[in-house]
């Protein structure tokens, strides 16, 4: 067991993947000499050199496009987008190129690349640096989507992403980089594409991912003190989606709540809620409730920012009322 941060685990995953396979390289803004805007790639340029940690100009569309081409040509690029908020600038390369090449070209070739980025609130970074845009990705067939919540998953999901035959968007949470946990990276974790049940209870199921896993676990603890036992499911990957685990738990418990930091309307929570409602209808005692981000941009004001996304209090209160 070692103490490790989420940031360290991501770096270790990159290091191990690069040591194992010299086709793996990192390309993005400030990834080399600077060590990444959030320090994830710090030190890797000393180990692997500037050919494998390619610092780029500020040219997001071309960074992602170059990764697409490199993947088609047999390399394994890990492109980095400093903030998920910049995904719009790359959306053609991601949505029209990376996502569709295998299909359009009749299965001749895939695009096995990883696009690492980070999102979410917590640093008072304002409307253009705080969003949770995973729904953009989930809405595009052909793209895989991973969002690690724990230190062990930061490592294993990134390693897993690099083994995929298809493009993976890998969204870290900016508030988790300093999360420190005791981990044994050689201990088994659920396979790529499998959800993890982080807590088991009989009164309701909370389905969530990324930072909201921690929020839900905190709420679940407070609920337990009030006699309510919640199951907390950490999805780990949203595509593939492990609906079997969700279904089994919801059918067993009969109540479900979905928690997401992304905006409520047409978001990931909407998709999950619809699917649970449709497929588990006969087992549900109550409607599926979404606790999600407000349908507004994120303010730079600390107070407004905090109120724009699900708080522990809102998750707990909603759960209590749902079970009552």
């Amino acid at each position, binding site marked *: 067991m070692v103490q490790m941060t989420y940031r360290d685990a991501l770096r270790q995953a990159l290091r191990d993947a690069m040591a194992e396979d010299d086709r793996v390289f990192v390309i993005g*803004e*400030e990834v080399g*000499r*600077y060590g990444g*805007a959030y320090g994830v790639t710090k030190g890797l340029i000393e180990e692997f050199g500037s050919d494998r940690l390619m*610092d780029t*100009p*500020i*040219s997001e*569309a*071309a960074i992602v496009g170059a990764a697409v081409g490199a993947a088609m040509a047999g390399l394994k690029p890990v492109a980095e987008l400093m903030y998920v*908020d*910049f995904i719009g*600038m790359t959306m053609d390369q991601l949505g029209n190129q990376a996502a569709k090449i295998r299909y359009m070209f009749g299965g001749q070739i895939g695009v096995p690349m990883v696009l690492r980025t980070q999102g979410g609130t917590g*640093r*008072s*970074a*304002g*409307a*253009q*640096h705080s969003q949770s845009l995973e729904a953009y990705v989930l809405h595009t067939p052909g793209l895989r989507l991973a969002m690690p919540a724990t230190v062990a998953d930061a490592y294993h999901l990134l390693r897993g992403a690099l083994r995929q035959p298809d493009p993976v968007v890998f969204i870290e949470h900016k508030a988790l980089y300093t999360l420190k946990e005791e981990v044994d990276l050689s201990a088994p974790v659920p396979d790529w594409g499998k959800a993890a049940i982080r807590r088991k209870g009989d009164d309701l199921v909370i389905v969530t991912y990324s930072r909201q896993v921690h929020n839900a676990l905190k709420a679940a603890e407070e609920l337990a003190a009030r006699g309510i036992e919640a199951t907390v499911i950490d999805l780990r990957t949203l595509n593939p989606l492990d609906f079997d685990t969700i279904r089994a738990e919801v059918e067993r418990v009969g109540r479900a709540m979905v928690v997401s930091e992304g905006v*409520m309307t047409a978001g990931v929570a909407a998709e999950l809620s619809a699917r649970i409602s449709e497929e588990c209808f006969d087992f549900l005692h109550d*409607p599926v*409730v*979404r*606790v*999600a*981000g*407000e*349908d*507004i*941009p994120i*303010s*730079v*004001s*600390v*107070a*407004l920012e905090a*109120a*724009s996304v*699900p708080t522990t209090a*809102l998750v707990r209160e*909603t759960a209590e*009322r*749902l079970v009552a």
Partner: protein
Amino acid sequence: MTQTAMQAAPEATPRPNSDLRALYTQMRRVRTFEERVGELFVRGQSAGSMLHLSIGEESAAVGVCAAMREGDTFTTHHRGHGIFLARGADPNRMMAEIGGKETGYCHGKGGSMHIADMGLGHLGANAIVGGGIPAVVGAGIASKRAGKGDISVAFFGDGAMQQGILYESMNMAALWDLPVLFVCINNQYGMGTRIDQATKGHELHLRARAFGLRGETVDGLDVTEVRETAQDLVDAARTGQPGFLAVDCYRFFGHARMDKSPYRKEEEEALGRQKDPVLHARAALIGAGVTEDELDGVDNDIAREMDAAIDFAVASQEPQLASMFRDVYGPDEPEPEPVRTRIDRVLARE
């Protein structure tokens, strides 16, 4: 030079701010404001850590803005405090916005990187590198239609020189003879990347000329030179000849408040900081017979003005929580429904 670049501006605009003293005063205001922003951050009163100071770049903001006039519009990048001040912003409301307070220009929603004021023609600062550039094409179309001779100016950093949208925008501006000016504040760095690590094409103005714009590069050390070069380009833009100006300077400090610039050498920084447009203008004034005492008086007045801005920001209230649903849509439109209200409806069902 291209043919357009050689045509003289048809009529010279009066130059009310052209005297060095006024330029010095404005530059000192920008510098002192930025120093106080740093203080606001240290005192834990700024909203967030994403504060980008323009110390060392004052001549770009002040020199170009002095060539602009009321009615002109502009957009800035994320390092835009100085530009906005030089266009007449109220330091109190700016500082309050940077602190995320209700009394700020954008009621605490925008912050340092998203400040704007339509009254002063500020169409917005931007946290997306290159994000504010194409708006001046649209504003230029509107100015051209209105026929009052107003122009629109995009301010951005050298980092944006590698974003494709700049070239799409410059091409349109040239194609349609728009009253537009593109101003690249070349402080040599985009975060930790020095410009020679981002491009091999260093004569930035030649890129603009390739699209048919007037393109110039000026040394930012001398604000008078910046102002004069800018004035020529501004005058030409008013007649429908779009231009591009690169102002060479040096980013004196880190990219943002937290960045200690470990990627560059102290000697380089020391050399870069010698290129100080504020001190340069001060020395020129003294050379012209202005006394140290007089200039200290100017500086002290400015220090008081900016201290007052800090006090104003610190004393201001945080925005009311309910305000977060305001201004997502137009003033007569219903506000988005809070998540809590929607949950209440789900759970109220029996």
